């Protein structure tokens, strides 16, 4: 017994518990019969007495080594317990899981010993080549018959330490007498051994880490943002913060250590407000399935005769939208050769091999590929389930590359206004219409509604996983038949927010499900668990300091799961009801709750928790402690307690731009370039997200399709078919939020203008989820070990004067010269020189400040360090236009002190200094005109009377470009070279001549000059046309009126305006295509020269005002 081991075991114990005796012993592994191979019964003392050879062999294998300790807990009265734990090779830290058995010394505890016959042993030794001094072996058997005790199977071990065993028995006898003494109180005996529970109930802290994902609103907040409010000299809730930092650290590390690769899941999400109509058109396009009827010709979209014809008025946008997405798949028309079926109820055979999915897939093949292969693809081979030696440091890697026509694994559809009848509102649970839509969905998927029942005939098809309806809101999830087994714990929820805040005419329905990738077993046929999982070979990229497991690859026994949540909602209508929509969202996030209390039956986690091959003497798990254990009845969770949450539906957010503007921008050729980008700026949902009024946790892809509402089949419509009484809007949306363990990639997001069923168009979006696959038992074991590794972290507060010791190696950092564009990065080394883990966080100097100034970024803002661990604190300067605008007018010397608060410990100061290099970017017009020279040369500002007419920087740019030999064809068209822009900027700030000579054949330099001019104008703290003048500007209807407006401008602004617009006019006029160039220039410059930060002025009016000056 080494002193190291003794102290290692002491470290494992809780303070207050002491080791009395430590005995070196070994276990006899259950052997197999040498002739038959049948397992022999576990070694008992009697059998061992006759089998000294087996004892000797067992004694030589280090893996059998066990330590038996008598541990005493003294809290008023002394209580003892016998611990049996696994020994580690020297230097290895003991883990909680090394404690194999715990026997409280009381009641029927019995330890018997026997000597193993030496003669037999000596006989066997003589035949071998072992040393002469044969050791004497003793067996000891520990039994405890008490029914209520935690361990019942007798345990037999062997040892050679006769003397120690004697001491151990004496000590146990003494403790037993103490325990068996007539009780002083009437308390039941077992309760007094409560001090043992931390050793036995070792899984207790783990369920929250792996069973219910952390709330996404928290998971998406950076770690330091979740900590308590604190500042210099005023630590916050350090004890609470340390738990937050620790749990995050363990969660990430444990999953990382248990990682075996990655898996993907493809999901197609659709939302459709059907306005009370029944399905009258083929839904395959929306569902991303193969169409029932082919498109007849390339390029022009004409729906098959069986479907109601498209609105002819819509043909134009339908075409332009469609051509874009169709380009990569033009060859597809060849595949569509199946006969046109005139009857929608007749399901035509699936045509060709190319799925319609390729229409909505992005052009990049790998972004739409899916590793989740269909049944026809190669099943996951045994090799791919076991991590191979290939090194993959990236988080995901793909073994199988499926074609882009791969069907989604999961289809989730949200309907709104399924049923507009009054009855539906009163009898909220009617499902009459669901059937009709389900039939249409199955038809579009190419299967009959009853195919579910015909087992075996549904290969490659879908089955309904779940659905939930509330009045008109219905959410349906369908899954590929072969993946059905991967989804369990499917729960539904619904909440109404309509009339009186409760009725179901508005509100939401939601689904929650658990996805578990199957373990591909080499010995089992893949028919039950098809090749869903493509496990990439991944080395665990553990960075744990002591990382016992970091070098060994993890075997997948029971994969961890991913929780998916889908919310389908219909929020309050009407343009002006945006606050109500935000409130509805908030209400739904609170009221949509899933009942978890009944889920336990499905999970089978507990037996795997201890599947580490040590079953013979492992502590039986406490039922309530395992991650897969049933939750108590009444446990609910919300829509954010999920790994990924999708929110879809008719969210009813509108476009806050004048009605005329919206229609003009959508329809006019003049706005063809960038029309949707312009309108998106005024989208209420985007604004709500920016202001964090609703959906702040969510993200949404780029809206690259036309508004999906409101279409009118009658006469009151505009040229695009939009209802004249309703401003067009993107009411139908798909958003998502996910944690760091689940990476979501949106591969398509589009509306489907071909449908005329409703006054809304359906919207669909394809997603690929990339999830790390980790082995749950390994993760739980790791977490267990990591918890112990952090021992002392949260106890440190009990003794402020001890242990916590962080060293900041650099107490001051000089960032040198920093500028507007040039980002400077420096590092500060932080090391834990103490004996226990410690954590730090940056705190602000007082309650009003941020931990660092806005020109500096610091990462990581909070971290946990094991003893001797080093963290590099990275300081990066970031100076945007706003920041530059302020710094340009201030003292050039920048300095700040970062305060690194050691949790439970001292504050460290890091003094940061930098010299700001001023720039003309972000400098106001009035200041630029009063500079005595280039901004870098400094000097006092000129008096207002002596101010120059226009900033020399702007004039220099225009003058260079106006010189006769500069080619302007590509200016404002091509992308500019950033290096050239930097050179130009530097010349503007220093006054040095531009190192470029105008060249008729050269395009790159003029393009960079044009871009620099645009950026310089955009960096003005106030827009060139002041915000208060813009409403008047947009009212001017003629060129003359527009010119009159200039009287209201400041003199410098007039000069700049005239110079810039004259230059732009020249550029447009001299272009080969003057009209196209004019539109391109207006598109770029109107939002800059008439910058509208408040989004209140008509975008069409602002552009027209500029066009009045620049149009040739």
């Amino acid at each position, binding site marked *: 017994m080494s002193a190291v081991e003794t102290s290692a075991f002491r470290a494992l114990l*809780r303070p207050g518990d002491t080791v009395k005796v430590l005995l070196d012993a070994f276990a006899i592994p259950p052997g197999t019969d040498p002739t038959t191979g049948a397992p022999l019964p576990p070694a008992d003392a009697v059998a061992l007495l006759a089998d000294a050879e087996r004892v000797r062999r067992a004694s030589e294998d280090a893996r059998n080594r066990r330590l038996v300790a008598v541990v005493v807990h003294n809290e008023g009265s002394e209580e003892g317990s016998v611990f049996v734990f696994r020994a580690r090779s020297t230097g290895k830290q003991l883990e909680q899981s090394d404690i194999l058995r715990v026997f409280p010394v009381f009641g029927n505890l019995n330890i018997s010993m026997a000597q193993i016959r030496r003669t037999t042993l000596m006989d066997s030794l003589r035949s071998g080549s072992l040393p002469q001094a044969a050791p004497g072996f003793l067996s000891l058997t520990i039994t405890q018959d008490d029914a209520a005790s935690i361990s019942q199977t007798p345990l037999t071990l062997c040892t050679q330490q006769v003397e120690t065993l004697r001491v151990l028995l004496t000590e146990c006898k003494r403790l037993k007498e103490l325990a068996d003494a007539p009780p002083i109180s009437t308390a039941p005996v077992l309760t007094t051994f409560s001090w043992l529970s931390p*050793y036995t109930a*070792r899984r207790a802290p783990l369920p929250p880490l792996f069973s219910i994902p952390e709330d996404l609103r928290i998971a998406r907040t950076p770690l330091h943002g979740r900590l308590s409010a604190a500042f210099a000299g005023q630590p916050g809730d350090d*004890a*609470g913060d340390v738990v937050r930092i620790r749990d995050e650290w363990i969660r990430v590390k444990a999953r990382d250590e248990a990682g075996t690769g990655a898996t993907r899941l493809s999901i197609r999400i659709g939302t459709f407000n059907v306005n009370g109509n029944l399905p009258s058109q083929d839904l395959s396009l929306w569902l991303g399935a193969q169409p029932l009827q082919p498109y007849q010709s390339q390029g022009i979209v004409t729906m098959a005769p069986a479907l109601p014809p498209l609105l002819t008025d819509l043909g134009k946008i339908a075409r332009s939208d469609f051509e874009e997405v169709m380009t990569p798949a033009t060859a597809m028309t060849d595949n569509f050769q199946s006969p046109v079926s005139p009857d929608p109820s007749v399901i035509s055979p699936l045509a060709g091999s190319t799925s319609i999915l390729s229409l909505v897939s992005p052009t990049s093949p790998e972004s739409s590929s899916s590793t989740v292969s269909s049944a026809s693809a190669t099943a996951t081979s045994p090799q791919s389930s076991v991590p191979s030696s290939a090194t993959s440091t990236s988080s995901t890697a793909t073994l199988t590359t499926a074609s882009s026509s791969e069907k989604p694994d999961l289809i989730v559809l949200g309907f709104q206004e399924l049923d507009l009848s009054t009855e539906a509102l009163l009898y909220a649970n009617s499902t009459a219409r669901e059937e009709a839509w389900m039939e249409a969905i199955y038809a579009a998927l190419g299967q009959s509604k009853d195919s579910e029942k015909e087992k075996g005939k549904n290969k490659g098809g879908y089955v309904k996983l779940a659905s939930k309806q509330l009045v008109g809101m219905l959410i349906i999830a369908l899954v590929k038949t072969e993946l059905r087994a991967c989804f369990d714990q499917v729960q539904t929820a619904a909440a109404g927010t309509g009339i009186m805040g409760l009725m179901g005419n508005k509100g939401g329905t939601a689904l929650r499900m658990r996805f578990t990738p199957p373990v591909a077993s080499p010995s089992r046929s893949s028919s039950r668990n098809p090749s869903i999982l493509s496990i990439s070979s991944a080395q665990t990229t553990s960075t744990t300091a002591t990382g016992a497991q970091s070098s060994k690859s993890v075997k997948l026994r029971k994969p961890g799961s991913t929780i998916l949540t889908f919310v389908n909602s219909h929020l309050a209508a009407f343009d002006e009801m945006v606050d109500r929509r935000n409130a509805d969202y908030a209400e739904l996030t609170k009221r949509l709750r899933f009942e978890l209390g009944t889920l336990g039956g499905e999970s089978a986690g507990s037996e795997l928790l201890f599947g580490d091959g040590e079953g013979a003497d492992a502590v039986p798990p406490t039922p309530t402690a395992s991650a897969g254990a049933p939750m108590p009845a009444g446990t609910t969770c919300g829509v954010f307690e999920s790994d990924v949450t999708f929110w879809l539906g008719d969210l009813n957010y509108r476009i806050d731009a004048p009605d005329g503007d919206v229609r003009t921008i959508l329809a006019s050729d003049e706005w063809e370039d960038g029309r949707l980008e312009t309108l998106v700026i005024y989208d209420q949902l985007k604004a709500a997200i920016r202001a964090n009024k609703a959906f702040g946790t969510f993200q949404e892809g780029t809206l690259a399709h036309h508004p999906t509402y409101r279409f009118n089949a009658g006469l009151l419509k505009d040229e695009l078919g939009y209802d004249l009484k309703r401003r067009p809007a993107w009411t139908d949306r798909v958003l998502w939020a996910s944690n760091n363990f689940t990476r979501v990639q949106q591969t398509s997001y589009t509306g489907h203008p071909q449908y005329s069923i409703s006054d809304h168009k359906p919207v669909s979006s394809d997603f690929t989820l990339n999830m790390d696959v980790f082995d749950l038992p390994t993760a739980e074991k790791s977490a267990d070990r990591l918890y112990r590794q952090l021992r002392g972290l949260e106890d440190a507060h009990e003794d*402020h004067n001890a242990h916590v010791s962080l060293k*900041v190696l650099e107490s001051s950092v000089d960032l040198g010269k920093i500028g507007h564009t040039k980002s400077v990065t420096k590092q500060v080394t932080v090391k834990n020189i103490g004996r226990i883990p410690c954590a730090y966080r940056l705190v602000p100097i007082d309650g009003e400040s941020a931990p660092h100034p806005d020109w500096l970024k610091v990462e990581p803002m909070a971290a946990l360090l094991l003893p001797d661990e080093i963290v590099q604190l990275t300081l990066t300067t970031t100076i945007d236009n706003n920041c530059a605008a302020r710094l340009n007018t201030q003292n050039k010397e920048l300095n700040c002190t970062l305060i690194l608060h050691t949790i439970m410990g001292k504050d460290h100061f890091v003094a940061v200094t930098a010299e700001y290099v001023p720039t003309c970017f972000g400098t106001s017009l009035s200041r630029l005109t009063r500079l005595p020279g280039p901004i870098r040369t400094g000097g006092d500002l000129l008096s207002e009377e002596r101010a120059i007419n226009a900033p020399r920087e702007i004039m220099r740019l225009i003058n260079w470009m106006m010189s006769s030999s500069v080619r302007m064809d590509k200016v404002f068209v091509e992308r500019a070279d950033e290096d050239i822009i930097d050179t130009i900027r530097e010349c503007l700030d220093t006054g040095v001549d531009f190192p470029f000579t105008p060249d008729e054949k050269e395009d790159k330099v003029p393009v960079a000059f044009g871009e620099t001019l645009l950026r310089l104008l955009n960096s003005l703290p106030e827009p060139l046309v002041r915000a208060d003048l813009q409403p008047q500007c947009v009212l001017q209807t003629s060129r003359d009126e527009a010119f009159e407006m200039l009287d209201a401008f400041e003199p410098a602004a007039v000069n700049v305006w005239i110079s810039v617009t004259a230059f732009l006019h020249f550029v447009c006029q001299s272009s080969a295509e003057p009209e196209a160039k004019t539109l391109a220039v207006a598109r770029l410059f109107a939002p800059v020269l008439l910058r509208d930060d408040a989004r209140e002025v008509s975008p069409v009016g602002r552009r027209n005002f500029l066009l009045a000056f620049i149009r040739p």
Partner: protein
Amino acid sequence: MSKQFQFKLVLLGESAVGKSSLVLRFVKDQFDDYRESTIGAAFLTQTVTLEDQTTVKFEIWDTAGQERYKSLAPMYYRNANCAVVLYDITSSATLEKARNWIRELQRQADPSIVIALCGNKSDLAARRQVSEEEAKKYAEEEGLMWAETSAKTGDGVNEIFTAIAKKLPLTAPPPSARAGASRPGGRTGVDLNKQTTAQPGQEACNC
């Protein structure tokens, strides 16, 4: 039952006068010949038991003396009940700095703050530049407590802290005294220790 009080104490003074050494002597009864300069602020606690068995727990903020961190000091002496302003008896410049600190405290700190002026390094009396009389006179003028200490030998260290404890208003305990071992600055009424033990899972992860 003896009374327990808890007070926030801040140490101020020029760099290298021995603030951290004085605290180390007081809290742990240790002394390092070579101590690195404090770049930051350290938090320590020590309890003093008075003759009537009243215990006074000092929550001590040991601050950085360097000039560049001076702007941060107010954050640490804010809400302090007492301050120990240190100078080095072998350097008259440090007494000048001490006077500045005292002026700042009188102007900006809590008006009821108890201030003690301490001449440290009394073991180096041979190199003395500040006479006892000069410092004592200044202290009397300003109504400060005064003593000479040596963190190295321990002379006068416990005495000055005990004297401060006696001078503090022990009749009306400050609100923080009720919170037992709560940290200074812990929001009023929040017992951080209690909170810790109430954390679910906390118990089990101590194992």
